[in-house]
């Protein structure tokens, strides 16, 4: 269970999140929707511990842990995974090397046995097949020269291999054509499990046709201003975010 209580986050001196409260029980998929600049990406960064995103007030609890007290790598080892809106290019580091290094770092942190190369390659082959990814691409430096769709698939592949329990997807649909969107969504749906919580951050309802949320929340002005079932997403699609925007001064 993810419990966010009255979370305030500033970037520099600028307050972005202003008292966000949200519970996501294990096994559920919650969508966070909202207008541009509402603080959607900030929420993802704050949960994963990005330096510069300072929690000034409130608490975040995940699986009984005070998440805000942990380093980014420690959060990752506790199961937090952020799928980036714009995945980062890592020159000179083959994708396979990167993921295996990350996986074993997490396993070490949890006191688990590391995965040897042959077993790892087997895992990767299976996972990349499901996402219709060319295995040879994984020998190339991570994300360097990848298309937008390839980068997003790479994020989902990492998610499948690292087996996180708190999955945060930041605008995973942006930059995807309809076929890629379907493949990526199928990849995400395959990861739904009773012990996993998922937070799907998106501007458009489109993604939610593929990844069906249990709950939908509207994030505006730095806090959750409305919550409802899947029907709320359709309503937003039809009516827009206007009624949630602050009145012009």
């Amino acid at each position, binding site marked *: 269970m993810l419990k966010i209580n009255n979370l305030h986050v500033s970037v520099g001196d600028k307050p972005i999140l202003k008292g966000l409260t949200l519970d996501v029980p294990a096994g559920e998929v919650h969508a966070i929707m909202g207008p541009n600049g509402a603080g959607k990406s900030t929420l993802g960064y704050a949960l994963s511990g990005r330096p510069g995103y300072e929690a000034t007030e409130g608490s975040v609890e995940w699986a009984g842990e005070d998440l805000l007290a942990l380093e*980014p790598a420690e959060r990752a080892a506790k199961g937090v*995974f952020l799928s980036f809106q714009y*995945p980062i290019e*890592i*020159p000179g580091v083959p994708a396979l090397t990167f993921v295996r*290094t*990350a996986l074993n770092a*997490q396993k070490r942190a949890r006191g688990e046995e590391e995965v040897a190369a042959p077993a790892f390659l087997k895992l990767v082959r299976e996972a990349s097949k499901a996402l219709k990814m060319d295995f040879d691409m994984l020998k190339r430096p991570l994300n360097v020269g990848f298309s937008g769709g390839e980068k997003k698939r790479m994020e989902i592949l990492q998610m499948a291999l690292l087996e996180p329990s708190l999955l945060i997807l930041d605008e995973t649909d942006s930059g995807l054509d309809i076929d890629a969107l379907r493949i990526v969504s199928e990849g995400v749906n395959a990861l739904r499990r009773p012990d996993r919580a998922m937070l799907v951050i998106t501007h458009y309802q489109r993604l939610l046709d593929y990844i069906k949320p249990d709950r939908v929340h509207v994030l505006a002005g730095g806090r959750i201003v409305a919550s409802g079932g899947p029907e709320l997403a359709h309503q937003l699609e039809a009516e827009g975010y206007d009624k949630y925007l602050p009145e012009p001064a």
Partner: protein
Amino acid sequence: MAAVKETIDTVAELERYKYGFTSDVEQEFAPKGLNADIVRFISEKKGEPEWMLEWRLAAYERWLAMEEPTWAAVKYEPVDYQDLFYYAAPKQKEGPKSLDEVDPEILEVYKKLGIPLKEQEVLAGVQGAPRVAVDAVFDSVSVVTTFKEELAKAGVIFMPISEALREYPELVRQYLGSVVPVSDNYFAALNSAVFSDGSFVYIPPGVRCPMELSTYFRINASQTGQFERTLIIADKGSYVSYLEGCTAPMRDENQLHAAVVEIVALDDAEVKYSTVQNWYPGDAEGRGGIYNFVTKRADCRGDRSKVSWTQVETGSAVTWKYPSCILKGEESSGEFYSIAITNGHQQADTGTKMIHLGKNSKSRIIAKAVSAGKSDSTYRGLVSVHPKATGVRNFTQCDSLLIGKECGSHTIPYIEARNGSAQLEHEATTTRLSDDQLFYAQQRGLSQEEAVALLVNGFVRDVLQELPMEFAVEAQKLVAISLEGSVG
């Protein structure tokens, strides 16, 4: 992939400079300071022929008339050349050395450094593991050279240069100083006058050297300069891969290391020379460390000859070093692959010179500089094309990576093309280790130091791949260790 994992394991385990120990070895010194008598003393100690003494004395005279160069982008306290020991040797019996006769303290040093000196230890290793012959130079003298007999069967001569001067004086005389003349520069002249040991390699025509050769330099004594001389001759159609490594104890004084390496490659010969330089870099405040003022040059005399320099420079307080190739032979080829990592208060001014004299000669330069802390790194390179050298090609790529906001990185490429047919390419980039990349790697579970190690190893990968396999892993670890504490 395994290497990366190992890198990360090692980062956690190792201290910053694990080679900083000193050893209590009984040594004999020449009196402090430099004069003609010291030069005579060294020559006599080595039992050198008369012509060699004359050569040294002439070099000493030249040195007296020269001035220390100041054009490099490095700042350091002036060296007091009269306040140094020019000769420090572990006390031991004269004559042929077997391992049993070497001071156990010295053997312990090499054991701690992980350098195999016992041939059977190397042989007992994993089946199929490459074997490496080692010449171990301790302060001013070579203490042991392994696999000499086996190499001799292939006709390869691998021995301390002091021994070669006695056993193969004509061969040494023919080539010594023919690539780096005595008067080439201030430090080369000094080295020519006082060098006390180093390695000599001769590969006969058509022979592919059956194993990697390596020389391991260790400075141990305090207030002592190390001046070693390496001479490698690859006769027609031969091949050799050679590696040098170096470490020194942590001391709060600066120590001088002024080496000269000469390589001669005849027709169709190929020499691959790799360096993993890990001299003591000084402490966090910039106290102590080695002044590494080195002249390395290869003469690609023969047609189709090839020399490749690969260097991983992580140590030393100040580095001044430009491994170069004179491409005399037609279709000869020179390569320079470099990783220069500076952290703390280190300064490095390093690069290469590719002098194209032969027709259709070609060269390739890949230089990667990683600067962190308050360090400063300069790539200085020259690509020169002689008027008669037609069809010359060069490709140069200089990439700099900055970590933090207090370091500096500079690229100074000189190009002199005096033949219109030359095709010269130059690419350069400077990037900062990005917060985005660091956070991305951390989000996937890497600690900050693991993330830096992985990203930097990615940055230098092109060059690491040029190292012999067994040293690439070592170098990868070194990259990680040198950058510990560089972020945050």
